[in-house]
């Protein structure tokens, strides 16, 4: 029997339309036309419910999958991070407030992830942590991050990696690998580019985006292989976003401050649109400003207040070769120079940036 499939319209996402089309199509088949498709109490109609439901769900899942497979149309943060992982770029959905301080320790060393209590401008208590250990009686420049410390131990020895949630700040990750036979622990070194080292068997790890957020991996050419004789513990700081910005940090009895820069740079969880912009700038533009669109994406990713609305950004070629005119409507005048400084780090040599319409 030849079926006229052109009259079957089941690609819709509307259940009612799918069911109506199915019934219309099947009612016209000689073997089936005498069946009672229309009464909701008939088994035939109930069977149509099952078919239409399965078809509608298939359509919805397929559409959801297709939409979230591409950076331009993805609708969820995990999808965007998964796409970023496939492009080997790193998106950071949230960042800790941080500050660089010169500290001096007394006779007691400052252990990694020691707490520094602090009060933010809203008089709320927040806590800062150092990431590296500082020996006793030492003066050193360190960074303090705001958040809470978390430990992760679920290392996958098959893929040589460990997934971490998106709410941690990847700058605060420490990887400690313990040989369970000798009980010796080594802190591994984070590398951003594996091409920088020529020899293998190093204690190197890299951080990529994974489906849950990040992926700490030692599955890189220069790193030594971790077997089940080793235990891997990853420590990182869970970001509290902007809560730590401008906080007053109290010094510890074993660590006194010599400098007092206020913490800044804490970013609350970014929106899906912001994550998309980051991904497109990093993956397509390789974080370099070449085309006018690259400049727009770079400005959207600058993190400078007032630069997150695309329609407010104007980028145009200047009147002389090599000149690029940048303008952001409603940008504070104090932010103009930081914006140009930021863009110069992304621009080609010989490009002259001018802040004007």
């Amino acid at each position, binding site marked *: 029997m030849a079926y006229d499939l052109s009259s079957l319209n089941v690609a819709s996402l509307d259940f009612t339309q799918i069911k109506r089309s199915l019934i219309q199509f099947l009612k016209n088949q000689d073997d089936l036309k005498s069946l*009672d498709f229309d009464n909701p109490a008939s088994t035939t109609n109930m069977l149509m419910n099952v078919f239409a439901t399965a078809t509608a769900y298939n359509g919805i899942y397929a559409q959801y999958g297709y939409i979230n497979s591409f950076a331009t149309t993805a609708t969820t943060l995990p999808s965007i991070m998964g796409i970023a992982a496939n492009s080997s770029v790193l998106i950071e959905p949230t960042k800790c407030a941080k500050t660089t301080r010169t500290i001096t320790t007394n006779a007691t060393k400052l252990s990694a992830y020691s707490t520094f209590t602090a009060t933010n401008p809203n008089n709320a208590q927040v806590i800062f942590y150092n990431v590296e250990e500082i020996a006793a009686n030492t003066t050193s420049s360190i960074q303090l991050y705001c958040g809470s410390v978390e430990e992760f131990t679920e290392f996958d020895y098959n893929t040589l990696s460990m997934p971490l949630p998106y709410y941690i700040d990847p700058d605060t990750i420490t990887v400690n690998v313990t040989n369970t036979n000798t009980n010796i622990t080594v802190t591994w070194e984070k590398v951003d580019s594996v091409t920088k080292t020529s020899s293998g068997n190093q204690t190197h790890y890299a951080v990529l985006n994974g489906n849950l957020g990040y992926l700490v991996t030692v599955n890189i050419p220069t790193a030594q292989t971790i077997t089940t004789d080793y235990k891997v513990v990853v420590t990182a700081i869970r970001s509290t976003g902007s809560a730590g910005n401008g906080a007053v940090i109290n010094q510890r009895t074993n660590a006194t401050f010599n400098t007092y820069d206020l913490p800044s740079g804490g970013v609350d969880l970014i929106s899906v649109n912001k994550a998309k912009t980051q991904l497109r700038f990093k993956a397509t533009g390789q974080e370099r400003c070449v085309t006018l669109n690259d400049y727009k994406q770079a400005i959207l990713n600058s993190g400078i207040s007032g630069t997150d609305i695309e329609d407010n950004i104007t980028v145009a070629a200047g009147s002389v070769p090599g000149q690029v005119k940048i303008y952001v409507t409603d940008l504070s005048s104090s932010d103009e120079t930081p914006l140009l400084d930021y863009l110069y780090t992304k621009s080609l040599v010989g490009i002259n940036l001018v802040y004007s319409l």
Partner: protein
Amino acid sequence: MALKDFSITLQKIKTSSSTNDVGIVTGFNAITQYIENIAKTQKGEVPSDVNFGSDYFNYIFSGNADAGVMELKLAADISSKIPELVDVKVNVVNFTDTVVTFEVFYSLNNGITKQQNSSCFIEVKL
């Protein structure tokens, strides 16, 4: 109203023309099956038609199960979903912890003639 329907069991049975046809019910057997489908479906159970079925189930485990209320509920639900049936009346003939049996009386009005005083028994396992 085409009183011809797939058998709810969807079992393949032997027929004269084929050895692999799905079972078919017709006429009053089809109506009995319609009623059975309503009586064995709780309202809300079918996501695409949440009003399909009957909510007499709500009264079975209420502590003071009232057979009269269940009869009225089921009769109303049958009438609303099978408009060809008129004068629908339901009696609970057996009601235990594990099974409830209804006797459903109805007349069939196909728009031209009215066939009166038909009935069927529906057994619902709880």
